[in-house]
């Protein structure tokens, strides 16, 4: 995270988040998340997208159990640029070097159609995860979902019984300030594009989603991607 020290804008925010780390008692929240998750780690798989929440969760949990099961979903080049995907994998390996990492690729993500038709994604993701949990005999699925993110997530609860597994949310009570404070305090590696987006959208609104994806059109995300991530709008033509 050496690049985080480079500009004044960032230095000011860094100072703010480091102050918040003490003021917001983030250390206590992390400790609580660690204690809470202990019981689920032996028979659980941790899903890591590479975004800020899941990286913080991975950092917290890898301190409890270094050889935990980590599942990462590669969306394919049309939804997740290869540079960012490689950076995410690097970050995961750096944060949890002893973790048993499983990376599954979304085959449809190698086609441009993946940007327009996102329904196969849900089917592919959940069936892959189901197979994985069955193969490994795991019962718990740990996710970096936070209560603050939406009303739907707030009403979901911290431990949710699902059909094939039990969903557990270790960083459920973290706020966006807590997450960024934890990242700055512990130098948790996150993808660099966060900085570009944070500067324009604000630290509270920046999220890792697939890029140029019509699924998020109703939130205006493709418009923002078109300007900030224009390099990845087009790919090598296949004709």
């Amino acid at each position, binding site marked *: 995270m050496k690049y985080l020290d480079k500009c004044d804008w960032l230095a000011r925010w860094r100072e703010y988040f480091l102050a918040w780390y003490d003021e917001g008692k983030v250390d206590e929240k992390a400790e609580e998340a660690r204690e809470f998750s202990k019981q689920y780690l032996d028979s659980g798989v941790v899903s890591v997208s590479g975004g800020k929440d899941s990286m913080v969760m991975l950092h917290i949990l890898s301190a409890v159990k270094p050889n935990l099961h980590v599942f990462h979903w590669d969306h394919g080049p049309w939804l997740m640029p290869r540079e960012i995907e490689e950076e995410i994998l690097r970050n995961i390996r750096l944060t949890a070097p002893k973790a048993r990492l499983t990376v599954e690729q979304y085959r449809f993500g190698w086609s441009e159609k993946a940007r327009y038709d996102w329904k196969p994604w849900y089917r592919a993701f959940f069936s892959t995860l189901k197979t994985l949990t069955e193969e490994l005999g795991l019962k718990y699925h740990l996710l970096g979902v936070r209560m603050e993110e939406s009303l739907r997530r707030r009403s979901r609860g911290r431990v949710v019984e699902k059909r094939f597994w039990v969903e557990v949310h270790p960083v459920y009570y973290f706020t966006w300030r807590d997450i960024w404070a934890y990242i700055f305090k512990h130098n948790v590696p996150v993808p660099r594009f966060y900085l570009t987006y944070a500067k*324009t959208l604000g630290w509270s609104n920046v999220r890792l989603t697939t890029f140029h994806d019509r699924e998020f059109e*109703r*939130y205006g995300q493709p418009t923002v991607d*078109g*300007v900030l991530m224009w390099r990845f709008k087009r790919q090598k*033509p296949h004709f």
Partner: protein
Amino acid sequence: MQNMEVVFHLSTPIALGFPWIFFDSLLAHIMIKEEKGERCYSLPSKLPSVEIPRPPLKYWRDVAVASVSIIEPDTGYQIFPFFKRGDYPFPRGKIRRGSGFFKDFYLKAVYVPAQRVRFYATGELDEVARLCRKVSSLGKERNIGFGFVRRVEIREVEGEWGLVKDGLAMRPIPIRYLKSYEDSAFTAYKIPYWARESVDLCCIPFTRVEILG
């Protein structure tokens, strides 16, 4: 063919969907609207089937000698979030606003609070001037007031700066037409800019390049 500089003075900030606006596509759009009128918005299929006219510009190989937008002053991007809600007469009974025809959108417009948008081009000055005077607004989200043009200034300049100016590329140029380049990316370089057939590995505007003789 004359070398020219076109400056659009704006009265409202300009919203963008891509970091640059292409001058040749702007002229082509005005020409289509002139030819088809409002019919250019009601096409028979999802894919535009109209033949795109050739703007009155000089072409070097298949690249128009027309720069991308130079936005002044460059103050960085800002975000304008807004709701897009259906305000048409709703039918009786229950309707779904979360999905389907009446779906609501929470959108974000990326805008630059700029005062001027400058282009360089080479072409038929009178015809370009006539077309440019028909531009009432630039960029995206013009229906909610972004990118309104106050006035347009067109003047002749000494250099052909539509492709390269002071060693810097002024638009995407395919790297196969370049002797050397600093940076490259897959992007469209000719009209129609939305079509995948127009995409090639190109140099990036405002990076250092050297074109083939």
